[in-house]
């Protein structure tokens, strides 16, 4: 079943064409890496999917819903049921770890008891149950990364979007978090769209890769040796 679909999507920033006629689809539960050099339109693609940008042309689908088309947002970001981990993580600095997760869940009309149970479960999964009352700025880089993942997953989204989330970490921590992410995926089975400029990360996280160059999808599939097959 298709989870995400781009149909001939294009996007300009002023005079610059960032995405041109981009089409692809991602199935439910798939792990897809979006790879490409700086300025190739990876982040723009993710922001179009999240609903932070409006496509100039084409359509964006999530599940069986058309969420954006031809210069219009049809479904607002808060109704797309997506989780996202940003490059700079964007943990709210004025809220504790618990409050960061609770803030997301409060949008879902759950009882306080249910919210607490969900938060405890999410933080246990990322092994941060002892840091509930800590503020994000007091945590290490790796811990912050795990809070961001827990926050993105706590509302049980249909897809998790990740925008170069490991780019600022050292290699050992990257390895550990990649492993952790794959474990979470195996447990929860969410659809994962993982944007990165690193071939290694793309190979490790994605079962498929979309390689963007100059805003066009040029490579569609990638095997475990990292070799691609043009579409």
């Amino acid at each position: 079943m298709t989870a995400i679909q781009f149909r001939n999507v294009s996007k300009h920033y002023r005079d610059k064409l960032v995405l041109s006629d981009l089409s692809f689809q991602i199935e439910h539960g798939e792990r897809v890496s979006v790879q490409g050099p700086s300025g190739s339109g990876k982040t723009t693609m993710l922001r179009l999917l999240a609903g932070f940008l409006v496509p100039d042309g084409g359509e964006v689908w999530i599940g069986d819903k058309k969420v954006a088309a031809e210069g219009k947002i049809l479904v607002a970001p808060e109704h797309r049921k997506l989780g996202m981990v940003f490059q700079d993580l964007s943990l709210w600095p004025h809220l504790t770890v618990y409050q960061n997760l609770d803030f997301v869940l409060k949008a879902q009309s759950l009882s306080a008891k249910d919210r607490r149970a969900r938060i405890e479960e999410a933080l246990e999964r990322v092994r941060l149950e002892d840091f509930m009352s800590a503020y994000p700025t007091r945590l290490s880089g790796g811990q912050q990364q795990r809070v961001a993942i827990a926050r993105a997953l706590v509302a049980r989204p249909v897809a998790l979007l990740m925008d170069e989330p490991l780019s600022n970490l050292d290699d050992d921590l990257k390895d550990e978090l990649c492993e952790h992410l794959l474990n979470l995926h195996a447990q929860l089975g969410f659809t994962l769209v993982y944007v990165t400029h690193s071939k290694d990360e793309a190979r490790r996280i994605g079962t498929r890769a979309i390689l963007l160059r100059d805003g066009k999808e040029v490579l569609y599939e990638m095997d475990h040796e990292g070799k691609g097959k043009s579409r």
Partner: protein
Amino acid sequence: MLVSSVWVGGGLSARNYVEVFGNPQIWVLFRNSITLAALTTALAGITGIILGVLIIKTDMPVGTLLAAAFSVPLLFPPYILAVGWFEILGRGGMLSRWTNAAIGEMTSGWLFGFPGAVVVLSSAFLPIVLLLTITYLRGVNPTLEEAARLSYGPFAVLRQITIPLIRPGIVLALTLVFLLTMGEYGAPAFLRLNVFPVASFTQSSALYNFDAATAAATPLIGVVLAGLFVEQKALGQRSYSFRWARPQMSQLIPLGHMRVPVVIGAMMLALLFVGVPIAGVLWRGSSAAALSEAIERGASSAVHSVLYATAAATLVTGVGFFLAYLIQRRALIGWRWLDALGLFLFTLPGTIIGIGLISLWNRPSTNWIYATPGLLVFGFMAQYTAIGTRMVAAGMSQLSPSLEEAAEVAGVKWFRRVFGILTPLLRPATVAAWVATFVFCLRDVSLPLLLAPPGQDTLTARTMTLMANGSPELIAALCLLSVTLALGPVTVAGIAWRFARRLA
């Protein structure tokens, strides 16, 4: 100053304080000052924050133009707004002439009291709230809001994420407005509202009782310290992640069908807060006879104003640059105290600084500075060095220390590093600091009234002095001269800025 207030007849004595605090009138003054400051802070705060949010976070049109319009009162002393409103609502004002004398009586009563003073001071200090709100909103990392947008609508994100994130800026703005209102002399004096600075000024200038003036000013020092303490407590040690957002990255909240009514409402408010009082001054003071008399009686004072403001702005910017370096690079033990001292002096009423400087320098051995405009420039420096320091420090915080370190590693000496690397990169912040200090010195009332030597007063001091016996036309024309004097350099700086940006 504090020493002389407790040193009576060659010995320690609390007589001045007993006299001042034993007088029930002092508590009336205290209540009046606190009430005025609280009401002004509430009105300017609510209006400024709402306007800042509308301008930066929504798709309301002409936002930049509205921000500029609301900021105009920051360029001249608040008493000009009071004069403008007097020409509209006073007994012989425009409204009274257009309707009848009874309405003039009523509106005059309203103006010469708390409601009038609150409106005048709110429009005068609203730019502080507005500009700080805008600055802090621009500094919020847009992805913090986007992360919340995945769960909530734009207004909920604004309320629950954006506003809490800019709380440090809001607390700073409200504290500044409260303290500046507490210390404001010109507008309350014109509107005959009995508040602390007016009483303190009367003790020193009219009664020449400096010790009593100091004692009368002491509660104000306490309020300033309390205000700064509250600000520091509210901010704590939090370091929120701010960055300058690229415009296309920030999402604007669509106002939908409310877009037109909201912009019309904002324009009406700008008209009320800025347009109406300026129109009042223009109406009364723009006749050829009035302008000619104003130029004749105020031209030399205007020249003094520009000269003193130029000297003070140059010194403040220079000193501020090096203080900013010490604070920003943590190069001095106690840099936090240095920063706090600057802010303390900025928020301290000018009357207190003036009385303090007179107490310190009014001796035969220091007459070489006391009898010259140097003392006034010194007063400006004491009051406004925080502007230079904070503005340059803000620019410096955007520069990576590695820029200087790269030169240091290459063996470049400190002096050349500062003037060869930092100074050119900080030119915009330095120029902005100079212009801001120039304008603040130009609009100052209390310090020139107390410190300018006879015959060498400034335009603001001359206008305030002539208010006692000058014709309304002359006063209004002098106010127009002040407005022109302030708008001139700011307009030139604005045009030069745009030109430089285009060239870049």
